[in-house]
């Protein structure tokens, strides 16, 4: 427990806050990398997943592809990308986008497919256009599952964003890598604790969002 105490002391040490290498700065960086990766992946995966869920077409191909992407080890991909693109944030960002993609895609098409078919059919029959069906019926009814995908992806990315420090001086991972190298284990554990705390806070926030999005089908009217 001594090391644990040391790590906490390290975190609460005012000298490690503020400035370009400070904890606050790195937390913000870590969050920015996480959001950027999830947002970029979402821009690609959500429309594709919604399209697949809505049309029921292309599912097998895309699901197989996403499975293949999922099987690629992130560290391996990061190393390859790092060799190709050099030091910097591009390589980790691309690797994290690849990591987030399958969960987002699966959440999107599963959410759309899960929308009550009877309601969708009736909405089409009373004259909603396909676009209106997607935006006014399928997405609201599938929001819970779609957000579940975003939540899973965010959790994976925030934990794995630690690897960004592997080839760029970005995020909380830096404490782990440099702590390991210089045998400053209090700093290393502090880095790990910070990542874990960040992941927990993000996940709880997403869970609350997900709950709030649940269709209010059974809520007693106020």
């Amino acid at each position: 427990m001594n090391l644990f105490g040391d790590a906490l002391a390290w975190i609460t040490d005012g000298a490690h806050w503020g400035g370009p290498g400070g904890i606050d700065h790195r937390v913000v960086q870590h969050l920015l990398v996480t959001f950027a990766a999830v947002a970029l992946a979402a821009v690609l995966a959500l429309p594709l997943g919604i399209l697949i869920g809505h049309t029921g077409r292309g599912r097998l191909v895309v699901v197989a592809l996403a499975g293949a992407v999922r099987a690629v080890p992130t560290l391996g991909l990061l190393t390859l990308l790092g060799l190709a693109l050099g030091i910097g944030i591009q390589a980790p960002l691309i690797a994290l986008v690849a990591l987030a993609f399958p969960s987002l895609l699966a959440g999107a098409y599963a959410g759309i497919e899960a929308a009550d078919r009877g309601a969708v059919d009736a909405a089409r029959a009373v004259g909603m256009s396909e676009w209106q069906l997607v935006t006014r019926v399928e997405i609201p009814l599938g929001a819970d599952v779609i957000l579940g995908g975003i939540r899973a992806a965010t959790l994976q990315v925030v934990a794995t964003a630690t690897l960004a420090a592997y080839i760029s001086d970005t995020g909380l991972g830096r404490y782990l890598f440099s702590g390991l190298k210089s045998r400053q284990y209090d700093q290393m554990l502090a880095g790990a604790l910070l990542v874990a705390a960040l992941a927990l806070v993000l996940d709880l926030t997403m869970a609350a969002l997900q709950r709030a999005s649940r269709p209010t089908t059974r809520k007693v009217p106020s």
Partner: protein
Amino acid sequence: MGIEFRDVGKTYPDGTVAVTGFSCTVPSHRTLALVGTSGSGKTTLMRMVNRMVEPTTGSVLIDGRDVRELDKVALRRSIGYVPQAGGLLPHRRVVDNVATVPVLTGTPRRAARDAALALLERVGIDPALGRRYPAQLSGGQQQRVAVARALAAEPNILLMDEPFGAVDPIVRRGLQDQLLQLQAELGKTIVLVTHDIDEAFRLGDEVVILRTGGIVAQTGTPKEIVAAPADEFVRDFIGADRAERALRTVDVDGRSVVVDGDGRPVGVLE
């Protein structure tokens, strides 16, 4: 003019023949009841009118125009539709469900809601229930809401797929009476699907009895069908041999009392 089915057929992509060579005309302001056993193609036929199903042969005409020439979305908005099982949007309040089509066609939300509340009242739903979500209503109430939604765009044509399927016989009877009353006021052209022959006879001006494969067993007014069932299938389907269909009169103190096949009194002949 009304609706004309001109030699329509439907074979689904998996090879299921749902309808073959069906022809029928529904005059304006009249009700056509499609009855038949499960899987006889009733829903398929009805959904051809609003192009939810495209016939593989033949064509459907509304007031003389082939529906294929019309824009699908506009066509559907102009036709009231009551699906087989309510089909309300679970994430929208009852009043907003009813206002769906008017809002889609550009009626301001406020005005559409007011009209929706009036319609709810009209189909016998307390407007106070408008704030609820569909899951908070009973099956019978949901079906009324679905009818109100179908009426909201003031369509000339109403398509109703077993609209009272999910309710007990007493409630069903009440809903049928209500529909008859509404129809007397509104005079829509209605295609009604049911598997209940008594419902078809009560609500339909013209009744089509279908057998599997969408083949017509008999077409006619309820009276014509009761008077002369075309064949054994129709006799069986309408229960021609059931006690309550085999009425006769007996003389009681100079009055003609109508009794059923079991001899139970039904009423007095005027």
